[in-house]
């Protein structure tokens, strides 16, 4: 942003002050995430940059905390790398165990949320829907109620249904929390959907099923997909419900981190955090690509 010639020195000062302020806020946002990445390669079990690290001494960096993710809990962590080592790690390492749980629960949650959420969004945007506003706010209310209350209530209710300490219980809990995101994104997509396209498809000779498959689906799919990714991220990140409802067998990555931080924070957590940052970069990229695709189709920007 070039400054016009008529700006006074005071105005100039204010402008640069404003830019510096915004830069600092951006730094505040991103710095915590960036700091843990190099620290996860720290060879020493400390949480600050050692002199050697700042001098980029290779011996100050190591992958030991990443190795710990794979090994911690293995029956025979010192075995030579090979098939047996991998099987041992897959079956016994704590972090691998929680990673498996996280993915199983998140994927199941995603599928269930997308199914329920998309159906509900189709209903909410169809012309005959009575009391639309009220129903919408009821359907997204799990986003509004503090998670601690939801989890406490679920603990009471699920224990009478025998759902505590089960995968089913966790998947249900996460679906409750994740579905509102699908409802919101798909409803937004459908509201921007021009119903004349359906009529056009029919008038061009396609059957209703064909129109749904070749016209409606491709257009609302980005919305459904980003809703699904939101649901996935919600489940993958969620820890309060897991604390209340899960046993050791269902321990997820955030739950494992929670336990680790409360007991004794070890740099292994930073290594895991780095992996999670990579995962969130991946999810963010997918959502951005989907959003841009939609915008390109609507011809609004870019």
């Amino acid at each position: 942003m070039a400054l016009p010639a008529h700006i006074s020195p005071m105005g100039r000062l204010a402008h640069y002050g404003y830019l510096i302020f915004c830069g600092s806020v951006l730094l505040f946002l991103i710095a915590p995430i960036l700091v843990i990445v190099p620290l996860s390669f720290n060879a020493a079990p400390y949480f600050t940059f050692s002199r050697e690290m700042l001098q980029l001494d290779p011996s100050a960096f190591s992958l030991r905390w990443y190795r710990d993710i794979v090994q911690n809990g293995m029956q025979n962590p010192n075995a030579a790398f090979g098939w047996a080592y991998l099987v041992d790690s897959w079956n016994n390492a704590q972090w691998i165990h929680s990673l498996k749980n996280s993915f199983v629960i998140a994927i199941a949650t995603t599928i269930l949320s997308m199914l329920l959420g998309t159906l509900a969004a189709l209903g909410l945007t169809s012309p005959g829907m009575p009391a639309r506003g009220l129903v919408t706010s009821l359907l997204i209310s799990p986003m509004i109620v503090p998670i601690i209350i939801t989890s406490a209530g679920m603990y009471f209710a699920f224990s009478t249904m025998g759902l505590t300490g089960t995968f089913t219980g966790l998947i249900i809990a996460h679906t409750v929390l994740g579905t509102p995101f699908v409802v919101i994104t798909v409803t937004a997509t459908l509201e921007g959907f021009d119903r004349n396209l359906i009529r056009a498809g029919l008038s061009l000779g396609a059957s209703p099923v064909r129109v749904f498959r070749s016209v409606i689906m491709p257009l609302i799919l980005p919305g459904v997909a980003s809703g699904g990714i939101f649901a996935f991220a919600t489940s993958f990140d969620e820890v309060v419900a897991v604390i209340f409802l899960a046993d050791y067998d269902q321990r997820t990555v955030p739950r494992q981190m929670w336990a680790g931080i409360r007991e004794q924070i070890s740099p292994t957590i930073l290594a895991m955090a780095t992996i999670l940052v990579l995962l969130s970069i991946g999810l963010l990229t997918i959502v951005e690509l989907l959003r841009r695709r939609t915008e390109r189709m609507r011809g609004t920007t870019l």
Partner: protein
Amino acid sequence: MMSGTIANVRPPAAQLDGAKRRQVLRQYRRSQRRDSLRALALVAPLCVFLAVMFGWPLATMLTRAVSNDDFGAVLHRTSASLAEWDGTGTPSERVYADFAADLRQARDEQTMGQVTSALNFEWTGARSLLMRTVRQLSSEPENGWKEKLIETAPDWGNPDLWILIKRLAQPYTSRHFLAALDLEQAADGSIQGVGPEKAIYVTLFWRTLWVSAAVAGLCLVLGYPLATLLARLPLKTSNLLMMLVLLPFWTSLLVRTTSWMVLLQDNGVINSMLVWLGLVSDGNRLSLIFNVTGTLIAMTHVLLPFMILPLYSVMKSIPPSYVRAALSLGASPVTAFWQVYLPQTIPGVLAGTLMVFVLAVGYYITPALVGGQSGQLISNIIAYHMQQSLNWGLAGALGSLLLVGVLLVYWLFNRLTGGQGLRMG
């Protein structure tokens, strides 16, 4: 669009006569009903799912907060015979006999704990009193249970204790809610504040309130200028900078909290840097964590994107011509900002502040990890009663109060914005 479609479908009923008109109207209503049913059928699965898996749990929590089931169930004979007692003098022999029978059964079924903890909460020394009493239950008394129990412990001759037991044996109780507000019911039934050493919840509610308000305020102060910049920059640049806002938004809460623990520790990155820069001496490292400061810093960071996104989306919809118009009409840039730009961003400010405030009020993880003693919020004490003290009734009461508070804030927001609802990025 929707109303337009309906208007087109509506038949010109006025021009039709008698039977024909009724028939058309009927067909029209039928087609409307079919549309509604189809829409409802699509919404139904999620509605049912949420009713069972979300609505019912919340209802369970509310009933927990008022129910007295355990106590009344264990002492079911006693509570039945106490119902006839008018509360003056000591109860009849029958009450004492039933009480002994109930206690014996509870001892055998190992349900004494529920009686003990409830009674101990309100009657000092109830635990040892009950333990002493239970030991005397093996042999039948010679002169009836009344005499034997009073002999064992004179408390059993105190009518106040029996009034308390009668009250605790009711199926519903207000004691959890009273306790959640640092109140209790005195022996005579009047409501009074608890002693200062037990009064912690009101303080916690106030702290939760001010911490949340402070976090919302901090987010607004940090987020507003940044959002204006993002809304003004060309799309290519702003999309790039937006990534810096969205990445924290997408990064796991625990990752971000962990990283603040790493940064804020006494030996963490920030203190090490300050010492290295000579701003702080090695002995006087700032205590930035395990107190309210840590909670404020970490929660502001975690919730900042929730402020920036609605602000940005509102600001993006304000064309630059408004500020230009104000300037061309002679307003200084400052006047143009305060009188023209800012009023138009109010919906975004309200939405963002509400989002951050409501999320902050219910925050659990971050205060638990970085808050220490002084940085704990109401959620943490709910979790404590859920998991450690196992006082579920109190946890339910605290949760219900929190829920009512959150819903009130939403209601207020809807009133303020005229029911426009939330706008997210």
